[in-house]
């Protein structure tokens, strides 16, 4: 590591992570936070004195990174290729891109301690909590809701969304959607996670599996059976979903649909099939590298914004990269059509407010993680009360901190604009460059550094 925070930085960061009520914090707390970063520090809180202007710097940091060979864990390559990481001084190691760990290897590789940040699903990491280093999800990229019942195109099938659009209530829409399957041939694997989703869909619709012709088989077979028209509906893992949707088959009901109709509560079983995909780090690393974590969070948002604004360009970067690591043959138009829209929509900074600060949203982070905890308690992985959602994520706190930095930047930029009027010469040039740097960082969603530069400009 090229950058290590001072012990005092660490201590105050610990303190600020311990603050429970950050989400509803005051400007005073924001100043304390800014203080905590140790950057432009106390000067912001003190009355202005004629101290020389200190230009903040963004340190160069290397982060040992691992992704996974799937669409929802390779979007980081966009940040690499578009320079979003380097813009905030971060280089991914090894090789500038990190490593790729397939599903069944991510736990042990994370446990090895050689990876500092891993793109992963928090809910899939959670069962291994006792064997992994204590970890936290600190940045959310997307919500995986990709388990879907797929049906054949051009058969007059309607999806849950279409029934909802017709004005049906969530419950009625589920019943209507599932009723289309009665007496039909339905293929699915014996896998527990997928079976959970199926059971939920049937029970929400007041149906049982006896009302369909079940074909239980591994994904390759049910995929082939769908393609050859020998079954009518199918649920499988992501690869088979992608294959079938690329071939024109349509999702009629997804785990996301079920979840959106659910109660916003950790006891909602419908939420158990939705995962928080994002960046996970060992607690120990996070505590010592909060600055880096905040900067990575800004890169996360920038990537998601890029995908949101330019899905075609994003796919043109991500898809060939995924193909080169996984050997897949996805075409560039698949991601904008399927992945970015249905399978795992990447959430922009603006969209993330809903998952961190909207208690009525069933997708709120504490409900999603809370419902997963319930599942693991239910199946005996955890003892009741052993874990709370707070044990697995700090993402909401980092989000809140960044919102505070955003506000602080606005305040300080206004102050700096006032100050500029009384300045001239070299000083004016310095402050002006600080202001424009702060504005640029603000536009790049790195509110943390923006606040540091704005603070320096306002001091």
């Amino acid at each position, binding site marked *: 590591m090229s950058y290590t925070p001072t012990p005092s930085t660490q201590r105050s960061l610990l303190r600020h992570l311990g603050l429970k009520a950050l989400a509803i914090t005051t400007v005073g707390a924001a100043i304390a936070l800014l203080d905590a970063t140790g950057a432009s520090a106390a000067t912001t809180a003190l009355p202005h004195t004629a101290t020389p202007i200190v230009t903040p710097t963004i340190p160069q940091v290397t982060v040992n990174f691992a992704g996974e060979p799937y669409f929802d864990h390779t979007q980081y390559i966009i940040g690499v290729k578009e320079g979003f990481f380097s813009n905030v001084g971060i280089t991914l190691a090894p090789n500038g891109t990190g490593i790729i*760990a397939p599903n069944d290897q991510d736990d042990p590789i994370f446990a090895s301690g050689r990876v500092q940040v891993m793109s992963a699903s928090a809910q899939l990491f959670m069962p291994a909590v006792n064997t992994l280093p204590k970890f936290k999800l600190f940045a959310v990229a997307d919500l995986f809701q990709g388990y879907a019942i797929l049906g054949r195109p051009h058969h007059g099938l309607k999806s849950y969304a279409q029934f909802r659009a017709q004005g049906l209530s969530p419950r009625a829409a589920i019943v209507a959607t599932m009723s289309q399957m009665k007496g039909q041939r339905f293929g699915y694997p014996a896998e527990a996670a997928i079976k959970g989703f199926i059971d939920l869909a049937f029970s929400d619709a007041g149906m049982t599996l006896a009302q369909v012709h079940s074909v239980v088989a591994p994904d390759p077979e049910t995929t082939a059976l769908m393609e050859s028209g020998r079954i009518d509906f199918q649920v499988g893992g992501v690869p088979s979903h992608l294959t079938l949707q690329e071939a024109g088959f349509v999702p009629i009901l997804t785990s996301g649909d079920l979840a959106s109709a659910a109660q916003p509560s950790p006891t909602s079983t419908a939420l158990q099939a939705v995962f928080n995909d994002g960046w996970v780090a060992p607690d120990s690393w996070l505590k010592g590298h909060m600055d880096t974590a905040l900067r990575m969070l800004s890169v996360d948002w920038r990537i998601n914004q890029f995908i949101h604004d330019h899905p075609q360009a994003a796919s043109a970067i991500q898809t060939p990269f995924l193909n080169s690591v996984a*050997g897949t043959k996805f075409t560039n138009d698949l991601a904008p059509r399927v992945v970015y829209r249905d399978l795992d929509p990447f959430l922009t900074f603006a969209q993330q407010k809903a998952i961190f600060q909207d208690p009525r949203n069933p997708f709120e982070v504490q409900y999603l993680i809370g419902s997963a905890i319930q599942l693991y308690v239910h199946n005996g992985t955890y003892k009741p009360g052993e874990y709370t959602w707070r044990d697995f994520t700090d993402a909401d706190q980092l989000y809140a901190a960044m919102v505070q930095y955003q506000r602080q930047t606005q305040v300080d930029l206004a102050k700096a604009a006032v100050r500029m009027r009384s300045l001239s010469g070299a000083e004016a040039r310095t402050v002006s460059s600080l202001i424009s740097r702060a504005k640029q960082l603000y536009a790049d969603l790195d509110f943390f550094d923006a606040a540091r530069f704005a603070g320096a400009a306002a001091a």
Partner: protein
Amino acid sequence: MLATSRPHRQRRALTYHIASLVALLAFWWLLSYYTNSAHIIHGASALPSPLSVLNAIAGLSVFLAPGTPTTLAHGLAALWQNTLVSAERLLGGVLLGAAIGITAGLLLAWSKLVRLLVQGPVLLVRTIPLMALVPLFLAWWGGTSFGILAFIAFAVFSVVVISTVEAAGNVPPELVNLARTLGAARFRIYRTVILPAIVPAVIGGLRVVIGIGWALLLAGEYLGAQNGLGHVLIMAEDYLYTARMALIVVMIMVYTFVLDRLFTLAADWITRWMPKD
């Protein structure tokens, strides 16, 4: 006395081998044809046909670099590239494991104290089921080439160290006495008598691991390999490319055969002094 001459007999054996291989291939083809038509499916299938396995070569092109167009030449290049990466790991692991195993075995045979201290643990090593070590190695060295190398090296070591200790104990005492009466000191005896005398036993041990060498490599490449045949296989498994999985399996079979032949040739040359019965 057999009426046929040696080269003649060899030629006949070869004919049989080829004939049985062709029959096996035909059987495979028929079986895949039957299972595929029974399901009337295209695309992914449970048993890919030999032709689809061949066709899978071109699909490997993407492994070369992002955006590589899919052609047979690129596919072959990717196959070759990943083969080299894997072969390097396999060879490195075998050499490292053999070197450590032989050295440790000789040290054990050299000193009674060392033997008393470590022979127990070393013998235990042999009883560890290798595949059970995969998660452990993954946790220690996952995602690095060294982890894979270390895994293979460990497997080789565990076999070689035992063969070495046993072989060193079985060196005929009259050979040691002969060297002593010819004036050789202890270290020279180790170098010029014990070491060459254990070669056949060590080679015998190595032959066992070489036979499962490529399988070991595949297991090793489950340790988060970023490239190599195992990586290709794992990804194909993840994305249900059955033809590609079959292709890698066939390639592994071919490589296993080639490696075994090469090893046998080398071993036969190295132990050409051994009386054969």
